[in-house]
């Protein structure tokens, strides 16, 4: 059996979170939320550890991770770009905005640029339908985005620091 | 923070905090309460409209009369400032001129509470301000 390598710090983080939920298998989703919040994503090794801590099987953990769109196994970019694909945004042109981001960054949905800066994902309705179409970069919300604005939005983050 | 240990406690708290949102409740149904508009343009302020307004607000509250007191721009009766417009539920608005504290007290006592007319009404033909 191949040994699983993880940084000690990561091991401690995961163990602590599992312990917070009494190592209860029924709290798997809460545990995954917490771990992802800390680590940014849920790599295979971490899922192995979670399974062990919760006395569950790693297949089950993976089954859950792959079921919910909120969980990801790939690290997100430093500036994760999320395009809302809710109906309101869709009818107001979100798809064209998404296409433009994909074109400009030469990136597919769910992937991260090589420099680790940007990643693109789609969201289901962030509830800001009045601002449709909506794009989020990290926590920042951009409303009424047109494909023409995409270049400008990306440029804001290119130097590594968003102008807020 | 004290625990709410009984229904009576809850009612007591409700009474205590009710005033906090009274203004909002009243503004949500202005037609059902006394509406007072105070002209608060430069001329009004200069002639003491602010004091009048403060007095009206605290007096109405003190006497537990549900009312909405708002400020408005110049009513066009600069000669009679401070002017106020009072609308009782279901009645036409009435404008009073030269409303100082004393006058305000009289308006509240007589017009608002007893629907008696008082001096100083500016007879005008306008719908509202």
């Amino acid at each position, binding site marked *: 059996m191949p040994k699983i390598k993880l940084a000690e710090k990561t091991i401690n983080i995961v163990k602590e979170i599992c312990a917070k939920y009494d190592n209860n298998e029924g709290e798997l989703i809460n545990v995954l939320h917490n771990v992802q919040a800390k680590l940014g994503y849920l790599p295979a090794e971490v*899922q192995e550890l979670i399974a062990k801590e919760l006395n569950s099987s790693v*297949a089950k953990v993976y089954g859950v991770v*792959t079921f919910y769109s909120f969980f990801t196994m790939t690290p997100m970019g430093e500036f994760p770009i999320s395009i809302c694909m809710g109906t309101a945004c869709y009818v107001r042109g979100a798809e064209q905005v998404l296409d433009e981001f994909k074109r400009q960054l030469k990136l597919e949905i769910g992937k991260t640029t090589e420099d680790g800066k940007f990643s693109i994902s789609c969201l289901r309705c962030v509830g800001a339908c009045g601002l449709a179409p909506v794009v989020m970069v990290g926590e920042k919300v951009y409303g009424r985005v047109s494909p023409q604005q995409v270049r400008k939005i990306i440029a804001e983050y290119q130097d590594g620091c968003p102008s807020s | 923070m004290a625990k709410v240990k009984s229904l009576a406690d809850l009612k007591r708290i409700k009474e205590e905090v009710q005033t906090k949102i009274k203004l909002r409740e009243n503004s949500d149904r202005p037609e059902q309460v006394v509406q007072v508009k105070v002209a608060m343009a430069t001329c009004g302020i200069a002639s003491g409209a602010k004091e009048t307004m403060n007095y009206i607000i605290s007096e109405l509250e003190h006497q537990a009369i549900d009312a909405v007191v708002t400020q408005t721009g110049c009513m066009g009766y600069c000669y009679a400032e401070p002017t106020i417009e009072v609308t009782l539920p279901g009645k036409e608005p009435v404008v009073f001129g030269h409303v100082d504290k004393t006058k305000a007290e009289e308006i509240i006592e007589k017009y608002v509470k007893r629907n008696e007319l008082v001096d100083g009404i500016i007879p005008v033909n306008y719908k509202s301000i």
Partner: protein
Amino acid sequence: MEMINLTIDKKPVVVKEGTTILEAAAEIGIKVPTLCHMKLHDMGIENKPGGCRVCVVEVEGRRNLAPSCVTKVEEGMVISTSSIRALNARRTVTELILSDHPADCLTCAKSGECELQDLAQELGIREIHYKGEQSQYREDTSPAIIRDVNKCVMCRRCEMMCNEVQTVGVLSAVNRGFDAVVAPAFEMNLDHSVCTYCGQCVAVCPTAALTEVDHTGAVIRALSDPSKTVIVQTAPAVRAALGEEFNMEAGNLVTGKMVSALRQLGFDYIFDTDFAADLTIMEEGTELLNRLSKHLNGDKDVKLPILTSCCPAWVKFFEHQFPDMKEIPSTARSPQQMFGAIAKNYFTEKINVKREDLVVVSIMPCVAKKYESARDEFAHEGNPDVDYAITTRELASLIKLANIEFKSLPEEDFDQPLGESTGAGVIFGATGGVIEAAVRTAYEVYTGKGLEKVDFEELRGMEGIREATIDFDGLDLRIGIAHGLGNARKLLEDIRSGKSNFHAIEIMSCPGGCIGGGGQPYHHGDASVIRKRMEAIYREDANKTIRKSHENPYILKLYEEFLGEPMSEKAHHLLHTAYFDRSNKIES
């Protein structure tokens, strides 16, 4: 219990409350087609996710069609199992499943045994109206099991077996929507996982999404190589099931025909794993008595209970999941491996054939035996003790391939010296059998007295966990038996927590024991087949003249000529083994 009146296809039916429509229909001879549903009666195993939607029927007054496998009957229900609406839906749903399934039936490993193929045939599907994209997953080959996920129909049977029955937890539904399939974590290969290769997933898979690795080609090549001496051993459970592959009634014992067929196939010697089972009893029984007497004398270093170690899936299971307890199981190798070791070390001498020129083939009811024979510790300088382990099903296909008319074969006898066995060796094939065989020998050795009655009914049965106390002339020997790894887990957890007070425990991974093994003819959800095989095994035992391992003359001769005595150094070297910690280690 209340009785419910209802009408199915215009026929009145009265059934017990809690019955499903599917069961109620079956009572009056109406077979509603199913795919995902599977119920192994009296094993407590049932799979009914209600997911395939093939068994939908029309219930009057309901807005939607009802899946008959999960819908319970209600008073006054009026059901049509074959209305146009139900038929159309059933066909459409089946077409949808087929539209995401490779159409390579003619060359598929499961052709002829495939439940989806049967369904399509039954429903008369001649065209798939809704074609489109098909799932594209890679094939995963392990030492024992092949996963071809493109053929997965999401019936979830394997997932249920792996998690609920076996508690191995390798398989889970992963992804969602169109991409949903059953797979190991990270879609890793099985040989990287904690899979025990018990093969219960293979046993229940309706299609060829899970099949055993096929070694028949290698066996044919060996048989046709004139420089090789090819010998074969047959596990006890094979003879109780092989007939099913040739349309014989389940429970038919076909020992003689099987020997005859193997001879026709060209094997040079036809031997019996039962012989090695007797040998196992000599070693394991001696080990049990050694540990028992040391324990009774107060030796704290000796741990009890002793656990049987014949089952390779069980061995792999505790190596992964209970590595802290790997000192508890008997060190005795399984009969298959004892046979291989004796064949390659003793028999080669007897017939004067070099080790590398002897090919040992075993016929097993099991897919884990493929993995076991490939374990490093069972090879000498790269040459394995057992070269090929093929399943009962693979043997059947070899027989068919060789144009052998199985049913009309004459009954023949095994060859000697490794073909002689006792009734004790035969019952290894059923749950409780190994421990019963051990008791027969241990009793006589321990007490020095002869057994009046060799049948220990209290050790037999289908209960998942059984316990019995046998009076060893004043010593109450407490015995535990578990079949199915989930049941084994319960006993292991009791041992770990100090709750267990057994002296000896027998564990077999498959429900029913080897007769229900993953390499046996497909039961297609009919558990009575397994029971009939069990009866056949005990019948064979009863018919044997010698029924105690230590009375097998060839075994005695083997010790005399070659091994010395049980647990001797030579025996230790050839017939015993050690276990490894295979648990996941997470390190920084």
